[in-house]
C-alpha cells in the first residue's frame, strides 16, 4: 500500500503541475488578472501540489509494510461489474432504456451468483418496466427509447 500511496501522490503531483500550467495559459486582460478564469484553479492546484508533496514525504517516512489501506485484494473482481456497466451505457443509446436494463439486470444477477431463474426473469422484466413507466407516464421525464425496432419495442411496452 505504501507503493500505491507513492504512485498516487506522484501521478497527482505531475497532473497538478500540468493543470496549473493549463490554468496559467488562460488569457486574461491585465486589469482582470486577479479575477480571471485561471486564478481559482491556480489556487486549487498550488494547494494540491503542496498536499501531494506532504503525502509523498510522509509515506516515504512510514515503515515498510505499514498498512495504509485495504490492499488490492480481489480488484480483478471489479472488472466484471464495470465492463457490464460500460456495455449497458453503450447499448442504451441504441436499444433504449427498457431492453438494455432488462438484459443488464438479468446478466448482472446471474454473474453475481443468483440462481433462482424465475426470480431473475421476473425482476429483470418488472423493474425496468415499472421504472420506465413511472418516469415517463407519471413524471413526464423522457427515457432513452433506442432506435429502429428497439424504439418500437419501447413504445409498445410503454403504451400500457
Amino acid at each position, binding site marked *: 500500500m505504501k507503493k500505491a500511496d507513492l504512485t498516487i501522490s506522484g501521478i497527482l503531483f505531475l497532473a497538478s503541475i500540468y493543470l496549473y500550467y493549463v490554468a496559467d495559459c*488562460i488569457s486574461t486582460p491585465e486589469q482582470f488578472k486577479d479575477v480571471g478564469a485561471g486564478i481559482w484553479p491556480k489556487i486549487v492546484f498550488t494547494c494540491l501540489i503542496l498536499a501531494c508533496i506532504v503525502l509523498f514525504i510522509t509515506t516515504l517516512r512510514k515503515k515498510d509494510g505499514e498498512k495504509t489501506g485495504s490492499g*488490492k485484494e480481489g480488484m480483478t473482481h471489479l472488472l466484471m461489474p464495470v465492463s457490464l*456497466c460500460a456495455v449497458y451505457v453503450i447499448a442504451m443509446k441504441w436499444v433504449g432504456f427498457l431492453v438494455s436494463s432488462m438484459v443488464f439486470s438479468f446478466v448482472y444477477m446471474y454473474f453475481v451468483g*443468483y440462481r433462482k431463474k424465475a426470480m431473475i426473469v421476473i*425482476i429483470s422484466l418488472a423493474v425496468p418496466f415499472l421504472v420506465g413507466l413511472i418516469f415517463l407516464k407519471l413524471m413526464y421525464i423522457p427515457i*432513452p427509447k433506442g432506435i429502429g425496432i428497439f424504439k418500437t419495442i419501447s413504445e409498445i411496452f410503454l403504451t400500457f
Partner: protein
Amino acid sequence: MIEHLFIGFQTIIEPVNILILFVSLIMGLVFGTLPGLSGVMLCSLVLPFTYYMSPVQGLVMLVAIYTSSVYGGSITAILFRIPGAPENAATTFDGYPMTQKGKAAEALGVAILCSAIGGFLSVLILIVAAPQIAKFALVFGPPEFFGLCFFGLSIMTSLGTKSIVKGIIAGLAGMFIGTIGVTEMTGYPRYTFGLKFLYSGFAFIPIIIGIFAASQVFSSTEKILGDSFKTTKIAAKFISFKEIIRIRWTIVRSAIIGFVIGALPMAGASLSAFISYNEAVRWSKKPELFGTGIIEGIAAPETANNATTGTAMVTLLALGIPGSVMTAIMLGAFQVHGIDPGPLLFIEHTDLVYTLFMAMLLGNIFIFVIGKTQVKIIVRLLNIDYRLLSPIILIFCAIGSFAIRNNIIDITSMFFFGVVGYFMRKFDYPIPAFVLGLILGPIAEKNYLLSMRLFDSDILLFGTKPIAMVFIVLGVITLLMPIVRICKQYMRTRKEQITESNV
C-alpha cells in the same frame, strides 16, 4: 398573530386543503427519495396546475412539496448511500455506516425526527421574525459568502478518517472537478480539452450518485465474488427518547445554522448541511467517531437542511426576493394569482400568509407521522438479497442521472465516478471530502471573484468585513485543529519514548 394563526388553521383543515397538503407531501417525499428527481422538478411540473386552484391551494401544494422533498432524500442516502439531492450528501457520511451496522431503522428515525424538528422550528422562526431576518440576510454580500464557504471547506481535514492530507487531496480534487466547464463569471471554457460535453461541466447529481452509490455496489459486488460479503441483521429499533436528549445540543445548534443559512439568498440547504456537520464534528468530544456511523452525524445535516425550508421563505415573503430556485417557482405561483410578495403581503393577504405558515407546521408534523410509520416497511428493503438488489440500484442510478439533463453522457459520468469512488475507498481517500469540495468549491470561487472585484483585487480588504473575517478565522482554526491534535499526540509519544529509554 394568534388570531391569524387560528384562521390559518381553520383554512388548512378544510377537507380539500388538507387532502392537497397530504398528497403533495407524499409526492414530495417520492420525488425527494428518488435520485435524479427533486422537489424543484416536481414544483416546476405542478406549477401550471396551481393556476386552476385557489391561491391557498396552489401555494399549500408547493410549500408541502418543498418541505417533504428535503426530508425524502435522506431515506436512500441512509439505506443505499444514494443521496436524493445534494443537501442529503452529508447524511450519507454517518447514515450509511449505521445501515452497515444494522441500525438502519435508528438512522431513519433520527433523520425523520430531526427533519421534523428542524422544519417545525424553522417555521416558528419564520412566523415570529420574518422581517427582522430578511434585513439580516441582506447584510450578506460576496465576501461574507466566501468566508462562509471557506469555513465549510475547512472541514475537509476532519473528514479524512486515517489521513488528514488524503482528506485535503480528496477535497481539492472535488474542487477541481467543480472548475470544469464554461465559467459563470467570465464565460471562458476551462479544462474542456475540446470535448463539447465538458463545456457545461459535470452535473453534480450524477457525480454524487456515482461516487457514493455505484462505487458502493462495485465494492459489494467485489466482496460477493470474493466470498467476503457479510449480510447484516437489521434491527427495527427506533431512536429512543434518551438518545434524543443526548443529541439535543447538536439538534439546537444545527437548527440555528439552518435558520441563518436558509435566510441567505442562494446559500441553500446543502451548505447548511455541511456547515452543521462540520460544527457537530468541531464541538464533539469524540470527533474521530464521525463517519463511522453515529446518530449525531445524521442529526446535524438533517436538522439543518430542513431548518432552511422555513427561513428560505423569509426574503420571498417579507421582501419579494426569491432566495432559491424553489422560492423563485413559488414567486411564479404568487404572480399567477396576481399577488405580489413583499412587505405589503402581510397586510393585504394576512390569511393567505398564515395559512401557508400553518400548512408548513402541519406538514412537518405529518412528515414525522408518515416517516415513522414507513420506517419498518422501508427497512425491509435491506433484507432483500443484495445480489438481487445491486442491479436494481444501478438501474436507478442510471435513470436518476439521465433525468437531470436527459443526456446519456451523465450516465457515463456517473459510472466513471463510480469507479473513481471505488478506488478512493480502496486507497482511503475520503469520499465526503471530495463531495464537499465539489459542492462548495464553485460557490466559493464565484464569491471569491466577486469579492476581489469589489475590493479592486486587494485581498487585504477582506479584513474590513467583520462577518467574513469571523468565518475565515473559524475556518483556519478548523483547518489547523486536526494538525495540532496530531502534533500533540506526536510530542506525547516522543516524550514517552524518551522517558522509557531513560528508565
